[in-house]
């Protein structure tokens, strides 16, 4: 099953949200669940919450009392190739490239053990190069945006938001 939020990564995390006593359950990918779990609450920052949420891609929920991602690794199974983490343990080989997203939480300590690192620093495929640069820039801009909002520099924040929009459109093309 793919994550309903981003439609890109496999949904491996059981996400429970309680709003005004109503419990909603969802399966999300790790990235989206993480973003949801870290929802900053602005007491009076109605419009800024909205500003931020349009980038972080979550519904504004102002009366939210509890938002909690329970990382329950329901039998982790790659939605693309069907490999389970147990099978990986036996084979020592992944079934497909999506396994790397499915088993990401298990992967980090393993990669640290094998390589002493978790991030690639080598060659980048020619055709990914442009897009990768944009994605790296986007990450930086999003951090910048969060800082501006925190510092209540809203005009600046709006400018950065426009830059982010432009880059996102560029990526989609």
């Amino acid at each position, binding site marked *: 099953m793919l994550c309903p939020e981003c439609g890109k990564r496999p949904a491996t995390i059981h996400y429970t949200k309680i709003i005004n006593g109503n419990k909603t359950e969802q399966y999300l990918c790790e990235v989206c669940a993480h973003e949801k779990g870290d929802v900053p609450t602005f007491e009076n920052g109605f419009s800024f919450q909205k500003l931020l949420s349009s980038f972080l891609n979550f519904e504004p929920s102002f009366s939210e009392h509890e938002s909690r991602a329970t990382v329950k690794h329901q039998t982790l199974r790659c939605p693309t*190739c069907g490999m389970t983490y147990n099978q990986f343990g036996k084979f020592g*080989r992944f079934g497909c490239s999506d396994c790397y997203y499915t088993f990401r939480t298990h992967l980090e300590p393993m990669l640290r053990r094998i390589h002493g690192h978790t991030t690639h620093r*080598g060659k980048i495929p020619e055709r990914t190069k442009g897009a*990768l640069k944009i994605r790296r820039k986007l990450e930086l801009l999003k951090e910048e945006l969060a800082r501006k909002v925190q510092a209540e520099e809203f005009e600046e924040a709006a400018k950065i938001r426009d830059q982010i929009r432009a880059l996102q459109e560029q990526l989609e093309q």
Partner: protein
Amino acid sequence: MSLQHFIKNAISEWMRVKGPQSDIVFSSRVRIARNLAGLPFPTLSTSSQAEEVVRMVYEAWQKDSDLPFLKKAAFIRMSDLTPLEKRVLVEKHLISPQLAEESPHGAVLLSQDEAISIMINEEDHIRIQCLFPGLQLEKAWEMASHLDDWLEKHFTFAFDDQCGYLTSCPTNLGTGIRASVMVHLPALAMIQQLPRLLPVITQVGLAVRGIYGEGSEALGQLYQISNQVTLGQSEEEIIDKLQGVVRQIIEHELDARRRILHQSALELEDRVYRSYGILAHSRVIDSKEAMQRLSDVRLGVDLNLIKEVSASVMNELMVMIQPGFLQQYAGQRLDPEERDVRRAKLIRERLLMENNNPSE
């Protein structure tokens, strides 16, 4: 396709060229792993998916077969080879044992000089291997990267910003690179320094193996040293580090050779000629002893102690006395006892030929 060309000659064309430091480093190899986006890795692929990968690489080659590095290359399917033919390719290090034995849809694209082999449907969809004589890891990496760029024009590889190139086994993740050198360390073995040196190599994050790959025993004081880490360092950093360690090993081996020559030249010369005598006259010899004797004589050649034979003949024999080659030469399957007899005969004949028509 002339398969005979690939298996007849024990010495690949790339090996005929003398590389830098070739008295100690026999060869440098760089292998990189790549997978096609959107297809399961070979362990889980269906027959039709595996055939799809073979077809895709085949078509890419067909389109670009006039590229200099692919001129007169051969596209060979594992299913078209006999077990013996596959074994010969493994003994020449042109394909991996895994491709030969466990890949029903395996194939290889081999350049004419055999310096390049692109393995298909091994553990990963694609494994590009480049072999160079002597210590030339940078060149081998440049060539492999160039081939990678070529293939990338045709396919999208499975790649992730954080993890790098996605591979079937996480031990290859990131760069997917395995750089290795084959080194001959007879003097360090003679002065019993290897048991001290080899663990140090492992401690600095490199792997040491016998020449025929994982788990194989070191024959003839030939060792394969390779990187272990593939993630978090650039290809250049990985190669630099390996090259730096190999340079130090070369220094130690050269130093050991000088010391032996200085302290016990006569004993060394005696050992070289005894080994030569056994190679030239024995009637039964197993591969372990043959490799050891060849190692002794090769050291004698490198130190100018013996003139009867050349380094290239020693290289050739080290490959030709392997079981696959012996059986190829005999034209039939041989049990181990028969192989020991054939091996002795082959070595005798080769050395006799050298005496009648010296190659250098």
